[in-house]
């Protein structure tokens, strides 16, 4: 079987799996990394949102063979490691402080999307607007959207 190798949360991993298996299943079923959740499998619900080289992406819609050896994948489990100092990432702290989660199923994806959004607006030399918040595509079926909006802004300020 073909071998695939990439960086996951700061460590090199190598897996033996068919080329076209989507990365979400490599993470969850092969590597046991279950932070990214399944909610649709078709790049719509954003529950699986993680980072590739610091930018948001949906591993349910990427073949494992599409990754390069040097691609750095960060899941929610690796997010604290991308922020300075010990403890959680400031966006996670904002989420806890704002008591956002209800069932929690969407929340790893929401936090990863929020961090990527802050990085993106910073690259554009600006800060988050209402339109940016409207543009967050992650579904929360528990309807935690109002607190997500507050937490993103609080996390942005702390990042």
């Amino acid at each position, binding site marked *: *079987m073909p071998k695939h190798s990439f960086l996951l949360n700061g460590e090199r991993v190598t897996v033996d799996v*068919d080329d*076209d*298996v*989507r990365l979400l*299943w*490599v993470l*969850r*079923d*092969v590597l046991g990394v*279950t*932070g990214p*959740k*399944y*909610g*649709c*499998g*078709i*790049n*719509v*619900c954003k529950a699986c949102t993680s980072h590739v080289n610091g930018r948001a*992406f949906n*591993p*349910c*819609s*990427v073949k494992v063979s*599409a990754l390069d050896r040097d691609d750095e994948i960060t*899941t*929610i*489990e690796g997010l*604290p490691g991308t922020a300075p100092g010990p403890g*959680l990432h400031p966006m996670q702290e904002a989420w*806890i*402080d704002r*008591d*956002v*989660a*209800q*069932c*929690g*199923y*969407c*929340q*790893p994806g929401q936090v990863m999307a929020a961090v990527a959004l802050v990085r993106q607006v910073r690259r554009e030399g600006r800060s988050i607007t*209402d339109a940016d*918040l*409207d543009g*967050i*595509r*992650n*579904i929360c*079926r*528990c*309807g*935690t*959207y*109002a*607190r*997500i*909006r507050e937490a993103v802004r609080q996390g942005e300020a702390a990042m």
Partner: protein
Amino acid sequence: MSETAARAARPRTEADPGRRRFLGYLLAAPTLAAAADLSLGTATAPPALALPSGPQPAEVYDLNDMLTDATRPTANLITVVVHEDGTASFELPRSENGQGIMTSSAMLVAEELDLPVSKVRVTLADARPELLFNQLTGGSNTTISTFTPIRVAAAIAKQELLAAAAIVLSAEVESLEADAGVITAPGGASVGYGQLARRAAATSTRRVDVTLTDRADFKVIGTPHNRTDARKAVTGRKEFTLDLQVKGARPTMVCRAPTLNGTPVRVRNKKKVLAMPGITHVAKVSTGVAVRGKTFGQVIRAVRALDVEWKDGPVAGQSDADVLAELRAAELPLAVPALPAGAKTVDADFTFWFRSNSALEPNCAIADVRTDRAEIWAGLKSPITAHEEIATRLGMTPDQVTVHVVQGGGSFGRKLFFDAALEAAEISQKMRKPVKLMWHRTDDSRVGRTHPMATSRIRATYAGSEVLSFEQRHTSVVTDNSHGLGELITAMSAKLPVGEIGFAQTIFALTQEVPYHYGLVDQQLDETDSRFNTGSMRNIYSPDTCTARELVTDQLAEAMGQDAFAFRREHAKDDRARAVLATVAEVGGWGRRMPAGTAQGIALHKEYKGLNACLVEIDCRPATVDRPVRDGVTGPRVTKVVMAVDVGLAVNPRGLEAQMQGGIMDGIALALTSSLHLRDGHFLEGSWDNYFYTRQWNVPPEVEVVVMPDTTGEPGGAGEFGVASTFAAVACAYRRATGRTPTEFPINHRDPLAFKPKPTVPPIPQSPTNGLRRY
């Protein structure tokens, strides 16, 4: 805002009736274990009211009374255990799906035990068949029914800790102070709960009695508290069913028929599919063809490759319009009341289309079925019924089956059923292997349970400024109650104030209440057609019946030349209703001038021992309605929501606010965007890009929830409570903004489809490969 209100409210609480002594138990155990009977609760006091509108059944005795009373005769114990590490633990015989009941239960224990909430560990109990009706999570009833017993168990534990400390510290019990898990004697000597845990343990089980903390002295209850699992949820460490690693439980999915509830006849290419990479098993089961393999990715590919001959399901060839015609045929006639001279009539007729109660976590379960025993893991709100049915399906006795309740990724009524658990058990038995069953989102959306389609007709009559009569005939596709609630009603039927009527009519009568003086009030339910997979969805009837009623209320107010808020306040049946109405009117700035195409709406709802009012503002101007968004719908935008909620005593105001916020998002979706379209025997919506639940671009930029001061000293329900009044207020605002009374919900149901339906063969879509280019 809300949180201060709740705190400020406490001193106003009436003289505490809770000083009476409650009976509980000390259990023989290695460390201190105190228990209370779950049947301890509040007595149902019949109100002595003389009302222009006579009390409806729900006013005297509602669904929550029934759910609470159903727990009484079963006499079973819930237990608080104090451990040597100074923590306390408690197994909650309920199901957590995001409502925050594990947090509020921990708060109840913390209050009586004088222990920080962080030192109270609440877990979910496995199915406990001996609890009979007392392990059903529904009707927003958890806090109502467990409020007293949890506190009694914790209070007994503290009483015993104090007694043990008195010996250790050589002091009088009365002189000791317990705080944050430490007991201190007057001289300053102290001992921690952990050190006392063994010493205070009972060697034989005995009855003890205890008084509860006076409500005026609550330190934890009524104070906002964050979720105890918040950290786990945002670090990815909260484990859902699909995250559990059960040995040998490999990814498994089911290939389903192209028509709803169609069944497999034969598999034409089993060998070929078995030879696909990663695939270990293919088996025909009652609901389709199951495939097991190494990764879900490989299983998805195999499900798509299956060539199956199907037998059509029971609604083959049918569409929305056929079901509507059936409902029309089943509608009960409205009576034509004898009207005094000069009286006028308002007639209204509304249609509510099918809606999906999918949670974000799809239906899923793990099953490990051996020849002589079975073990199941799933998010289950009626684990006892699930346990029984799984045992029956497997041909086993109940004691051969263990059912573990896992925290669910949302429920909204879906997890009252155990479709995936039953299916997983059948598959595991057939394959003789443990399975981790996941429904594809497309299965979950098309075959998963729906909120039944319904019509609601209303005839109201009025003369001058008096409403003389209000009739409502609700006609609905059958709501499946086979999850345990049906049995519960049968067992309770003798004492219900509604006479010999069916299950559904009983639930309807116990939940419906018109909160206004509308003269002669008569609400009836009729059901037809049981071919669909149905269930509740953050309530069963109320969001629809409330929306119909509130739209008619606006019409009545208008016909009498009155303001919608003033009319409601005048006709409201009680002060709690007037208080929530006045609060949203004030906080939301009712009556402010707004541009054409935008408007406010206001609505009131009463249920779950509580009341709430909702004020919304909506923008229906073309520039807003037509704003573009990828793979979604926009439409009118709700720009502001203010909700005032009176649940009686709010155990955790912060959690209550969260539940209302969630209910608000559901109400907006029901009014504006989310429905299922039945076409040619199946539902078209196959995922979240077809089924338009509220998304950030639909979310009101301003959402404010005001938690009202404690009005009753007893907690009410929360989980489903925010939906109805929001749905209604959005509908009323839409009517005022556009000048058109909406008659179908969601309002966009008959618009051209905003998506291209996914194929039904194969039944699930392959994942795209554009994830690195398109986010």
